């Protein structure tokens, strides 16, 4: 069966510090990978998605970047965090080349930038 791992679960970082959140998927190959953010009181906002190694699509201009160094690894980064980067970050995957497929989410990372 497929599983998705996301860490850390919580993170408190000072403004201006770097960020690295990691997500890995097991039990499947060539997944589509996603990073979402849920800001306080708001819905899930798609930040990045990837259909393959090194292929990253960005949905919104922001202080964050994403990388996919391996097929089942997706990393969310920032060189300098802003207060507005606080939120609940979710990694997700879906089968490649499958239409009408649901997303499978990780357990999320609660990021607080102080």
């Amino acid at each position: 069966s497929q599983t998705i791992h996301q860490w850390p679960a919580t993170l408190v970082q000072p403004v201006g510090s770097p960020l690295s959140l990691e997500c890995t998927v097991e039990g499947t190959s060539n997944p589509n990978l996603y990073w979402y953010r849920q800001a306080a009181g708001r819905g899930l906002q798609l930040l990045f998605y990837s259909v393959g190694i090194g292929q990253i699509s960005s949905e919104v201009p922001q202080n964050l970047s994403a990388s996919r160094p391996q097929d089942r690894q997706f990393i969310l980064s920032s060189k300098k965090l802003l207060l507005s980067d606080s939120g609940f970050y979710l990694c997700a995957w879906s089968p490649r080349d499958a239409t009408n497929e649901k997303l499978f989410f990780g357990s999320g990372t609660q990021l607080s930038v102080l």
Partner: protein
Amino acid sequence: DQQVKQNSPSLSVQEGRISILNCDYTNSMFDYFLWYKKYPAEGPTFLISISSIKDKNEDGRFTVFLNKSAKHLSLHIVPSQPGDSAVYFCAASAERDNNNDMRFGAGTRLTVKP
């Protein structure tokens, strides 16, 4: 750009009664709709979905209704149970985008009172 809207941030229902959660969308290209359930500090989990070729899909206590002309869908939970208390997200995607652009509503917090 709120293409998927859940206008009720919260809903409170008595145990055993029906819960109705509503969702509206603006993009006529959306052809696949999903409901996710989210507990605090956890990732969303898939609940039920419906394709645009249908107007109803039922799974146990959960039924999703789709009204394409009104660009509206709803989730009915009957009977509601205290364990159903969670945030429910409506989501939509378009097959032409290989579902890589799934849009989420802001969520509705359902509280089922014993």
